């Protein structure tokens, strides 16, 4: 029996159209290809949890033809009824009516649409102004309270629409409380309710709610009821026990972005608003106040988030998520158990029912009493040090306090006890104003061969007085940060302020940032070596083949530092592309090119053959990894937030740089 026949019959049997004959069954058992086909088919059917019924499109032609023929026949027979007198009159006056309507439209357009300007002119929202306005709004904020109505679609087939009321309270500088009340009507009490509470006063932190529940298992969860996670002696503005204030002022992405796209003025709840558009990948921090616990529907990275900012105060009034168009998104939706979703209809809406900036909520609302199971972060608060005095580690006041604070004022200072897990002295200073903050950390006795607080792809930045710093954009867990290697220890400045502000603060620290020791950048082993922190030119000069760079990159991406990898007989170069303000997945896009290397043997379950330009490549969908051989050169592109189409487009745009290609930005 031929495989295609067997597979067709197996498929029919899965659909219930026929039963599997003994011959087909015998063939399937003996044929690995058909066994795999059947397993894959069941898997695909398994992941498509929604019964996608495709409505039959009726053929309208016969019906229309029938009506036309009927009319002609009736007319010839004189059976057409006498038309209504009003209709007859309207029909006769059709030219006059058309002229009247045309005149009305032209008149309205001319006088109200901006062609003929009459009266006072209203200022238009300027994309470049929005980040500045947001930072200003964040700094001015003393207190905030808001109630949002949240609607989420397509969580599961049984519960296609959920509704929540979220109450957010903030009191400067580190008091935050969010309460999410699930008002959904579930099919039965067995369904877990997403009632959530997060409270922090800065020093303690507590989150309560149901654990995330695998959607395929719903309505049951591995764990019944709520869990509570508590933290005491919390580090100032600790990102691991987050204070998800982007719903108040979206500082992570928007306040630092030069890519804000204004899509129009609008009116929300009677207030004038500016609508801003971004991908979900960029706007994910707007949802963190909901997603710290509980179960939520997934979004595709390229789904669109439209955010309406109040034109007067710049606080978010509303935001919606629209599904991205295209077949790849549809395939993702079907794999994740979502139904077909239209790009024109929002699948998530959060709208401010009310918000107030007048009175800071009382401090008592932010008090937490962590139980005995609370995690102790070990931060010991002290009085803020002053130069020349006080029981502080020598030099902290002089070395850690920046001369430029961007208008922020001292808030907390403290240290960690030296332990076997932290065998160095670590002190921290925090500054704040409204919702804006930055911290300066100093580590003395650092015991590792790498910069404190940043990774291998930190971008070298030139600071004032010829100093050097190493910058990392914000991720979904870490703020924007800049590391300095100095003779007075390792320093890390972290903030939710824009990149330029961070660099100004770091530049004003007394110690001068030095280049990281060469020994920290070179990692050797018996089978080869890895060298970090090179510029593209430096790395390309050490590689025995022409290095290609993409002539197309997704908007906002730019090349960062390069890494060289040498193993037996192979030499490779890794280039990381990220966006300067925030790369929430922390990864961005990575291009690896190597000589002396063939396509490695596949080990994944779902790898596929794909053409990249004229070359045969391999696509590993689970890892978002595209690999191909370009002659004798191995190349790969990986980006967790990118689909195959985008990666292939970037891959096919690879070119030899003409001369000096854009190296990592070397100045603020």
């Amino acid at each position, binding site marked *: 029996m031929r495989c295609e026949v067997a597979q067709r019959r197996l498929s029919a049997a899965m659909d219930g159209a026929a039963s599997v004959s003994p011959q087909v069954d015998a063939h399937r058992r003996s044929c690995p290809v058909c066994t795999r086909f059947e397993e*894959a088919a069941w898997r695909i*059917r*398994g992941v498509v*949890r929604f019964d996608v019924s495709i409505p039959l499109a009726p053929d309208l032609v016969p019906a229309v033809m029938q009506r036309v023929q009927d009319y002609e026949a009736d007319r010839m027979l004189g059976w*057409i009824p006498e038309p209504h007198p009003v*209709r*007859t009159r309207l*029909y006769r006056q059709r030219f*006059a009516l058309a*002229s009247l309507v*045309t*005149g009305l439209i*032209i*008149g309205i357009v*001319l*006088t109200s*649409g901006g062609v003929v300007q009459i*009266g*006072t002119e209203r200022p238009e929202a300027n994309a470049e102004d929005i980040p500045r306005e947001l930072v200003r709004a964040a700094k001015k904020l003393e207190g905030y309270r808001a109630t949002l109505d949240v609607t989420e679609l397509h969580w599961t087939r049984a519960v296609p629409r959920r509704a929540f009321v979220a109450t957010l309270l903030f009191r400067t500088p580190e008091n935050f409380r969010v309460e999410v009340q699930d008002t959904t009507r579930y099919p039965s009490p067995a369904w877990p309710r997403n009632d959530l509470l997060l409270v922090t006063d800065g020093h303690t932190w507590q989150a309560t709610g149901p*654990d995330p529940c*695998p959607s395929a*298992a719903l309505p049951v*969860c591995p*764990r019944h009821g709520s869990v509570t996670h508590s933290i005491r002696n919390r580090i100032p503005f600790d990102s*691991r026990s987050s204070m998800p204030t982007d719903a108040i002022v979206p500082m992570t992405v928007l306040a630092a972005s030069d890519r804000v*796209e204004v*899509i*129009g*003025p*609008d009116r929300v709840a009677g207030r004038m608003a500016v609508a801003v*558009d971004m991908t979900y990948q960029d706007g994910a921090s707007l949802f963190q106040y909901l997603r710290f616990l509980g179960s939520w529907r997934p979004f595709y990275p390229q789904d669109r988030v*439209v955010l309406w900012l109040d034109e007067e105060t710049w606080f978010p009034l509303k935001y919606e998520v629209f599904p991205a168009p*295209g077949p*790849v998104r549809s395939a993702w939706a079907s794999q994740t*158990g979502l139904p077909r979703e239209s790009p024109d209809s929002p699948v998530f809406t959060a709208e401010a029912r009310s918000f107030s900036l007048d009175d800071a909520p009382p401090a008592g609302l932010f008090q937490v009493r962590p139980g005995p199971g609370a995690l102790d972060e*070990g931060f010991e608060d002290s009085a803020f040090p002053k130069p020349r005095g006080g029981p502080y580690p020598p030099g902290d006041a002089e070395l850690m306090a920046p001369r430029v604070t961007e208008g922020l004022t001292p808030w907390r200072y403290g240290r960690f006890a030296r*332990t076997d*897990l*932290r065998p160095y002295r670590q002190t921290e200073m925090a500054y704040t104003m409204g919702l804006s903050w930055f911290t300066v*950390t100093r580590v003395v006795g650092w015991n590792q061969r790498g910069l404190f*607080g940043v990774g*291998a792809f930190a971008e070298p930045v030139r600071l004032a007085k010829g100093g050097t710093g190493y910058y990392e954009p914000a991720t979904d*867990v870490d703020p924007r940060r800049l590391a300095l290697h100095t003779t007075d220890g390792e320093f890390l400045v972290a903030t939710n302020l824009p990149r330029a502000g961070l660099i100004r603060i770091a530049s004003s620290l007394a110690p001068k940032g030095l280049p990281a020791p060469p020994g920290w950048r070179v990692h050797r*082993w018996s*089978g080869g070596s890895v060298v970090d922190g090179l510029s593209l030119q430096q790395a390309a000069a050490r590689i025995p083949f022409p290095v290609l760079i993409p002539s197309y990159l997704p*908007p906002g991406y730019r090349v960062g530092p390069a890494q060289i990898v040498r193993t037996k007989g192979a030499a*490779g170069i*890794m280039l990381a592309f990220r966006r300067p303000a925030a790369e929430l997945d922390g990864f961005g896009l990575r291009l690896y090119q190597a000589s002396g*290397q063939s396509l490695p043997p*596949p*080990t994944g379950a779902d790898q*596929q*053959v794909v053409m*990249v330009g004229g070359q045969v490549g391999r696509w590993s969908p689970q890892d978002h990894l595209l690999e191909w051989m370009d002659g004798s050169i191995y190349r*790969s592109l990986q980006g967790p937030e990118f*689909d195959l*189409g*985008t990666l*292939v*487009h970037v891959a096919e745009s690879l070119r030899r740089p003409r001369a000096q290609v854009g190296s990592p930005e070397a100045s603020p």
Partner: protein
Amino acid sequence: MSRDVGPGLPSRPGAPRPNRVAVAGVALVIGLAGGGLVGLLTNGQPSPQVQRPSPTPSFTPPPVRELSPDTLLAWTPGGLPDGLGKGVAKLSKVDHVVSVISGTAWLRGSTDADGTRVDHPPAGLSIPLEVAGADPSTYAPFMAPADRTFLPALVKGEAVLGTTSAELRHLGPGSTLIFGSRKIRVAGVVPDAAIGAHEVLVSRRVAQSLKVTRDRYLLIDPARGASRKRLTKGIRSLLPAGVLLRVRGPGETPFFRQGDAVLPPVRLKVLFGEFAARPIAGGFLDVDPSWVRAHIPVVRVPILGKVRCNRALIPQLRSALAEVERERLAEFIDRKDYAGCYSGRFLNRNPEAGISHHAWGVALDVNASTNQFGQSPHQDARVVAIFRKWGFTWGGRWLLPDGMHFEFVSFPSGG
């Protein structure tokens, strides 16, 4: 005679006809005036207008086709015989081979990159982690070249985490895993498939220091033109008599690892929760009682009566058994011969063999006396089919049959 024939609206013959142009002109002027007035009244309050969100540039993906397998996984139940990896490396038409050791290491705690505590199991207990160990230089050809940047760190004694493990633990590069008195720095995070869906990959030397010593599977990179059939035969020839062998290619199993008929522990942790425990005598585990209270209720199900299983498994277990009952097959499940669901223990109560999935309460043993481990299974095929439909795999089809064993592999809705 000309006539305007509008559908259904024929003109009456002989009706007087006004000057259309003049009427239309007057109407236009009236419209302009009226429209202008409306516009003026509303001027200063422009009607809100939000453009549709602009989609990001989207590129049509090229067509893809299935990859023909050219990497092989080989494993034998209970661990590989000594020297198998070296023997396979000497077979003709083999380019690369790596032997991977795998087992359970006990995590006493962890910290993130700046030393802040992350994992803190209850006093006296530790978290079982499935750790793989391999020689970095022989493992290198099987890693994506871009992930080979972690090789120096592995040689130095550091670890890499799988993606799921890193998400589960909230750990990343620079964090520290604490096993007993040993602290291991995390160098990076790689896709689950790159490390056989283990939670942690370390060098062989480090794995052995964590008491993970048993070789579990081989990854084989055949040379161009090699025949899978011949290679399999060659591997079989290296095995002692009676040792069973499983050989797989890409796409035939979700992950290249030993015991590939069931979910790896990291997936069970995501779906059913992670517990802390400590090994006790007899191959059993003393599992954190608060975890057991929260996750393992006692419930009544059809046919079997009272069972102790994971809370998340109960609906589909109930559904499977109800269907067995409905199909009048209940007589094929002997209630008195039910050997349990939840049991905090190692596989076969052997501390070297990994944590039994019974410890998550996601497997159950039925008709135990007639379906002993390693013996020919004797379950009714219709019962097996119903359990399969409800997301259970049956041990009777395993390389080393375990006919009493039915275990969760997927939710019936496909998760």
